């Protein structure tokens, strides 16, 4: 005898299509044009910051930087749906989300400029710093969520990762934990189709990345990752479920990386200009602008003043970043442990002495 013992379905949600037309009913939060404008403004600021960071890198004033052009809706939609008391665990391409969480532009510039103070967030005190080793933050999110569950709090963890991360063992292990312990955590995959040079089709034979959650015993769904309204909506619902004891959720936001992987990458080595150009028609910002303009919520003057405002905000942050002096060498030692063990004293003194001899700041 053979019978079917399990079946599954994976949904795909889109509310605003690439032409800026509604393809589904507007969720309640989106009935308020001010809310939509807020999301739009955040995406525009994120992209403007992106461009500035890349130019700072090109002129030698910032280290390697991972652009997120084209993926603004994933970051902005996800972080906007979070409550302040939730915890955000980012990968390294989520400056748009971190901005909304309250990580300042100066902090982000400091981090990519090579200064640890960039992860000492003045805003979201419990949010995690960026996870550079791909997918290694997935277990942290499960741990944060377990802490919330053990204390019976109405909070949730949100972990954002790329499509490449879903091939990693620790991501599967974390999902397994999130499922079996019904943890209040929402995993969001920024499926931008490329893990440096490896396309999505070569990353996994699974039809969707979302369905990987089903094997771990919790729901997974796809969303149009270029539609900020849809991203906000599905993350919002998943978070409400997680905070009220409904367990984990996986959202695969389907988008496209319009930029190189980082400033150290040259994407023309592995994908054609035609492919990238075609994808520009789907990007999240212009469709939202079209929708807002057509619904009379946004005018040309609004756009002009927004761009000027973004430029001003970013310029001020850049100035502050560039004026920030590097940390003294002993700071390498001062946060290693709560209290520096005696065994380190000689090395710390040597670092200070070497710096004094060199006449460093």
């Amino acid at each position, binding site marked *: 005898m053979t019978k079917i013992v399990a079946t599954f379905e994976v949904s795909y949600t889109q509310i605003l299509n690439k032409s800026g037309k509604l393809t589904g009913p507007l969720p309640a939060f989106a009935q308020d044009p001010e809310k939509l404008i807020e999301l739009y403004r955040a995406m525009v600021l994120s992209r403007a910051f992106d461009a500035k960071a890349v130019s700072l890198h090109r002129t030698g004033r910032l280290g390697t930087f991972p652009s997120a052009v084209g993926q603004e809706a994933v970051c902005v939609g996800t972080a906007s749906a979070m409550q302040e008391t939730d915890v955000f665990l980012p990968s390294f391409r989520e400056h748009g989300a971190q901005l909304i969480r309250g990580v300042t532009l100066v902090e982000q510039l400091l981090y990519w400029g090579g200064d640890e103070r960039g*992860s000492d967030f003045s805003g979201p005190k*419990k949010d995690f710093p960026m996870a550079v080793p791909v997918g*290694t933050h997935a277990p942290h999110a499960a741990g944060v969520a377990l802490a919330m569950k*053990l204390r019976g709090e109405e909070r949730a963890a949100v972990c954002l990762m790329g499509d490449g991360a879903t091939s990693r063992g*620790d991501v599967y292990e974390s999902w397994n934990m999130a499922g079996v312990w019904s943890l209040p955590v929402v995993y969001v995959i920024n499926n931008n189709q490329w893990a440096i040079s490896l396309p999505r089709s070569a990353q996994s034979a699974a039809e969707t990345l979302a369905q990987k959650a089903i094997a771990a015993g919790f729901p997974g769904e796809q969303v149009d990752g270029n539609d900020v309204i849809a991203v906000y909506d599905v993350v919002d619902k998943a978070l409400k479920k997680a905070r009220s004891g409904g367990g984990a959720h996986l959202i695969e936001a389907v988008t496209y990386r319009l930029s190189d992987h980082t400033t150290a990458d040259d994407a023309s080595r592995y994908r054609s200009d035609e492919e990238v150009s075609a994808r520009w028609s789907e990007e999240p910002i212009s469709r939202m602008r079209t929708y807002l303009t057509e619904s009379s919520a946004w005018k040309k003057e609004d756009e002009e003043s927004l761009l000027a405002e973004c430029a001003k905000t970013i310029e001020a942050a850049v100035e502050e970043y560039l004026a920030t002096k590097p940390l003294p060498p002993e700071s390498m030692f001062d*946060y290693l*442990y*709560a209290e520096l*063990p*005696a065994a380190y004293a000689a090395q710390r003194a040597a670092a200070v002495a070497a710096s004094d001899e060199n006449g460093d700041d």
Partner: protein
Amino acid sequence: MTEHTLVGAVNLSLAKALEEDETVILFGEDIGVDGGVFRATDGLVDRFGKDRVLDTPLAEGVLAGMSVGLAAEGFRPVPEIQFMGFIYPALEQMISHASRLRNRTRGRLTCPMVLRAPYGGGIHAPEHHSESTEAMFAHIPGLRVVIPSSPRRAYGLLLSAIRDPDPVVFLEPKRIYRAVREDFEDDGEGMPLDSCFIQREGTDITLVSWGAMMHETLAAADQLAEHGTRAEVIDVATLRPLDMDTILASVEKTGRCVIVHEAVRSNGVGAEIAARIGEDGLLSLLAPVGRVGGYDTIMPLARLEGRYMPSTERVVSAARRALEFE
């Protein structure tokens, strides 16, 4: 006073930590109803409940990774890895995250956790159950690596490790889990981390060791004493940060030193100690610093295990070479 084995002391220490601090939680494979494969957590789930003593699915890497998340949220997780041979999936989390969280956030997030694992050979266990790879962790800034050599020290050092605000790798020498018993009170007294213990005072040679090898080392000191040599014996106990002051002071007194460890000889903690004596204690030395370790081989299966493990005789003969050097 009650007599305790080393594994019993671990159990007592964990119970005390759970009792005194509600943020302490234990988790690992088979640690709940089964009480752990070595029974280190025997009875704890009954006393403290399933929210404090959690049986986890089989995934070592995620145990360490979840600890980072729990610790950042104010818990003090104490995950157990069943055998050190299975600890390697947890390495990435300990190196890339646990050890760095305080530093990379300038103290905004911290990682008070204790990763416990039984380690070392000598119990005729299956493949991958007998290695001593403490040097891997001792290489990592931001971690503490602590190894007890007796029941009393297991109790006190583990309590201090759990109370410590930073991540600790706590390696338990399983060969002596039940080999010795010691009298002590379950008084909640911790023992100092970051300090060597002078186990026996002497004037003629310094023998340095840690973990289960303390027993061969002390036996060697006994044999040397029969011939009138008074060996000073030091239990390193914390491999990172390393208390070289105590070791150098001893070598200044004795002029001779032999380091004994079960781990492979090359690139180990013994090499670091020998190098530091060379850098900071050369003029005290009357003989080259000797090392007795496991061979630079794969840890053999049970039949040859006894041939691999440093014996009392090997320690004695290394000490004699140092004593007879002119």
